[in-house]
């Protein structure tokens, strides 16, 4: 969940996502100087909205991927990129309605948020100083939305 009323646009989520997830060193002071530049999986859009993958139930990126690189974890339902098979065709980039998939021209892979599926808890939610980004179960989401 992202609460746009609480988001101050401080970019801490981007910074720590870039450090903990995208960098090789996993240390802020060293990640800053890494080449290629680490690519965060979360974007702070406009003034106050942190945007990351919504892991759509009917995910267009999954449909668009020609060789099954884009996958869904059967246990958690999270959508992720299996990097070894990515052919950098950028079909997923074009199909994503939120624009959160980054085409990395250096690494030749599509980069996207997997909600830190190997870490137990997403780093963006952990570091958010105002708790604008939270991880919570919303069973009533559909009923409320529609």
């Amino acid at each position, binding site marked *: 969940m992202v609460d746009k009323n609480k988001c101050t646009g*401080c*970019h*801490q989520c*981007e*910074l*720590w996502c*870039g*450090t903990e997830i*995208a960098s090789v060193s996993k*240390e*802020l*002071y*060293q*990640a*800053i*100087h890494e080449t290629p*530049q*680490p*690519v*965060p999986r979360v974007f702070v859009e406009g003034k106050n909205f942190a945007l990351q993958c919504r892991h759509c139930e009917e995910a267009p990126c999954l449909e668009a991927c020609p060789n099954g690189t884009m996958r869904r974890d059967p246990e958690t339902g999270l959508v992720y990129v299996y990097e070894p098979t990515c052919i950098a065709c950028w079909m997923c980039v074009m199909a994503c309605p939120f624009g959160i998939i980054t085409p990395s021209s250096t690494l030749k892979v599509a980069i996207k948020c997997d909600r830190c599926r190997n870490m137990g808890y997403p780093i963006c939610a*952990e*570091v958010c100083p105002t708790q604008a980004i939270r991880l919570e179960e919303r069973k009533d989401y559909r009923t409320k939305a529609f």
Partner: protein
Amino acid sequence: MEFIQKKTMDRAVEYFLPKASEMEISLTWDRFEGQLPECGFCETGLSCRDCLQGPCISHPFRDSNKAGICGKERETLATQSLLRLVLKGTMVYLDRLSEFAKEMESRQWRPKNKPRTDQMLKTIQSFFYDGGMVKKELPKNWIRPWEEAKIFPEGMVRDLFRASQKLEGGFAENEETLLWIFKSSLLALISERLYGELKRSAMGITTPTWIEVNLGVLDTQKPNLLLYGYLSPLLKQKVAQEAQKESIQVLCVGTYPLIPSFSFPTVTNYGSQEIPLMTGAVDLIVASDQGVNPSIMEIAKAYEVPIFSVDDLKRSKDLGHLAKEIIGEVKKSHEFRKRFPRDIPPIKESAVIGFSKDKILWKKILKALDQGQIRGVAFLFGSGNVKFSQDHEITTFAKEFLRNDILCLSKGESSIALAKYGFLNPKSREEFCGKGVLEFLKGVGEEVPSVIDVDEVEFIDFILEKPKEEKKAFPMVACFPEANRSSEVVEAIAMVALGINTYFWPALPITGSQKAMEALTTFCQKKLGSSFYIPMEKKMEARSKATMVLKALTGQEGYGISGKPWR
């Protein structure tokens, strides 16, 4: 992001941690955890809020947001972050000097050496404006390289005003900003030197003195008056005189415990300054602004301890009157606080502090180095930082260095931290020192501890007397294993300007820019012949850090001194 599991190495402080938790008292460590993760942009120096259009950041992981609104690039932001810190730190020393000089000018004290005191007051006046007379007070062999590097100060007013304008805008290159960083640090160094000289001429010199350190020094019956933070030596003297008449015990936290003819037991050091209040044995706190955490106010309220702020504008400027007022308050508070139970852990350690430059002669050190008795000299600084287990880093450094025959010297807060663990007790020097250092210390005197505390006013003089021609071959290093305040940043940069290779933890807010760091390294090596090493590995263990410095110091391997770049 760091979470420190072990809060402190001090048993006395550790005793109060569960108590604080039960009573829901928030201590430094709790507040630190509440702050995590700290802002990464500020930590690396990639943020700026010098104007009201911001705050701005330079995003290290995005191709947009690289420059601030006014166009400050990453390099400029990082270098200016350091300059901002240095300016703040310089003010600390200048404030001490101007305040002390003002007190001396107001004739509230009869100086020991009147002609010298008058001369010093004139020099200080000149230092504030054109700096002309200052040159006479400094050894010539130091002035030349500083003038060649274009960092010799030209008077406080001019230099500080100009340096602060570097934050306002313009096209100053990195190197230009670095010049102002060093110039400002030298201002601090010179003001510390002038302060020392003025104190010596006005009050005389101190001799090595036995004191007791840690919470066990609090008296179970008598009124306990605690002096917190930097306080004028004249005020301390007056308070001590008045307290003696009324048999009130004067103790200190974060202030120098020696003044001529008086010494104060030290209760604890910077990181645990809130803990003495939890003993219930504190009757009054006299606090200044420098080095005192505002958090003590809350805990003092809980324990009903009055706080007497000497920096209050409404206070009387007559020190004698002020001292009497303080003693009156202590008596009143002690009467009221008699009903409070006192919980004082019986933990204390003896220490000898306050060695003068005449006691530890360079000649002796050089001779010991030549004979291979000692392998190097290390200066240990820093007041403690909550990012590390309290006192863990500095004690590990001292242990490793002493075991490997490195002579250790310290001053101020770092001495108090080391004193708590017996490093300043001559009786325990066999426990810590290697064979060589032990022999050297025995040669200097019977009552010389493992780590030598140099009197605060003697320290700069001691360094300035270092033979210049020996500089390159001289295995000497300054370490700040747990640095904290801006005044320590200034101290570290001044050490570099004095040609001493310096290691500093935690990383300074310049690390966000590779170019700025490289410029700093090149500047230090080319213009000053020394290195300023700011390690960027956050998760490095204290012993590895000490070993790294040790290897560099003894010339076996390592980086920094060997000339390798930082990364």
